[in-house]
């Protein structure tokens, strides 16, 4: 496989699907920038832990990997364990992240 000009080659391999994914990536980055510049400093710590929890979305990938648990191939055993640990780590991140953010945010309140 040629590596030079790899971006274009990549585009040629993946077809429009890759461009669609890149478009989604680009738009999501814009949405993220616009929204996050509006978060007030007061909420920066919760933002950090909350966005952290969102990055635990890898849990979806971890779940998809577990189908390997029934797989047969040479590497299925290893893939199974990778999937399992991914699941554990991602779940900690998700459950812990949203909970601790909630705990923090519940403390913020205006007494007005």
């Amino acid at each position: 496989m040629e590596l030079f000009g790899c971006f274009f080659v990549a585009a040629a391999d993946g077809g429009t699907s890759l461009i669609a994914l890149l478009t989604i990536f680009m738009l999501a980055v814009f949405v993220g920038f616009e929204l996050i510049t509006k978060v007030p400093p007061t909420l920066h710590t919760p933002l950090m832990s909350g966005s952290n929890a969102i990055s635990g979305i890898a849990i979806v990938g971890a779940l998809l990997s577990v189908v390997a648990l029934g797989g047969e191939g040479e590497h299925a055993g290893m893939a199974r364990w990778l999937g399992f640990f991914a699941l554990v780590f991602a779940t900690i991140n998700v459950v812990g992240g949203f909970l601790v953010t909630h705990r923090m945010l519940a403390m913020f309140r205006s007494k007005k």
Partner: protein
Amino acid sequence: MNALLILPLAQAASGETTSGSLLSAQGADLLYLIASIFFILGIKGLTHPRTAVRGNAFGAIGMLIAVAATVAGPALSGHAFDFTMIAAGIAIGAVLGALTALKVEMTGMPQLVAVFNGFGGIASALVAGGAFLLAIGTETSLQGDIATAASGLIGALTFTGSIVAFFKLLDLRSLRKIPGAIPGQKVLNGLLLLGALWFGVQLVQDSSQVSTYYAICAIAAVLGITLTTPIGGADMPVVIALLNSYSGLAAAATGFVIDNNVLIVSGSLVGASGVILTAIMCKAMNRSLTNVIFGSLGPSADGPSADDVYGGKVKGASPDEVAMLFDGAQRVVVVPGYGMAVAQAQHTVRDLANLLEARDIEVEFAIHPVAGRMPGHMNVLLAEADIDYDKLKEMDEINPTFETVDVALVIGANDVVNPVARTDPQSPIAGMPVLDVDKARTVVVVKRSLSPGFAGIPNPLFAMDNTYMMFGDGKKALIELIGVLKEE
């Protein structure tokens, strides 16, 4: 490798439906789209304290929808797999996560965020690795190969980097002296990065070797350690924000590997968030990101020594003396800093504020953007102590008003109130915006000694005519002060 070619994973993305799944592949994709909307609304909610709790809930709902779509979707059904293992994985993760989240002290937030960051990163790398293993022997796409290499590199680096950051934050003082850059540090890091990239190229050229992926991850893991170790413990928050961004990018890269929009959308949101927080912190410290990561910020030899600055000019004050300063005061501004977090004095501060308010004194809190060790650190601690967020004033808002402040009560803050930043262009914190506490009529500083803050430089504020030092642990000193005030 291209996950589209692995049968089971592929079904989530292609048009086929496996009989027996609750949802068609398209149904699952639609749910992923809805989950993405929830994530966006979640971040949008965080733009205001009033909507923040709901925003976080939206994020959690989005995650639930995404998990449900995966479980009910076609990918998981119709295949024989060990369901116990999934259940066990989720149960272990949920219990560990919930326990940590419920037990952690608010002062421990930086460490918690660091370690969770690392877990997010490693999960992404593991998922990409699993998909890679399964695809061995099939034909793979360049897109997938590049994304896999990126996911492994970023994910592993994020993991070890975060773990180092975690330990550095756990005990700042003791670790602070240890590391320092070893000679040739930058060359080593450069070589490691080149090595990881070289294996990345190998993976793209021949995606049939498991070892290539392991090599990328291993080198990236070492790089994560060598990159973060020399960085000063107190610079860790910047590093954490950066790693936060990386964990998002790793998730997005994994999205490209398994062709899943929701990973791409949420990964990009997190990536953007981390980048912006990093930029905000660097700006508030008046340093560039390169300076944080590669520069060393030690006590500068050529600056004035502590003796020059303090010699004979520092006035201590007992709680009784300080209590008298509040007689007749109309406006008091409390400036909390990292020391308040260390002393866990936030509740005591709240009690003091209530006491002063009961005497008709106007009490406000001046929050510097990098006070403490995390952006917004002080806000969280004061909110924990139930202090109304309307009383927390940002630097730009309160700075012009310090001339009308009767008593500025500095609790465990040091660098963020150091006037040298304004006056001495040679100082390591020159140009960093600071709270103009020195303009208040009187200043009371609560700290344990004259030892410096994070930047390691003396603070002429402590030697000013109208400054009184109340030496002692933040919490204990304030409790004594409250005692005196109550007796009056």
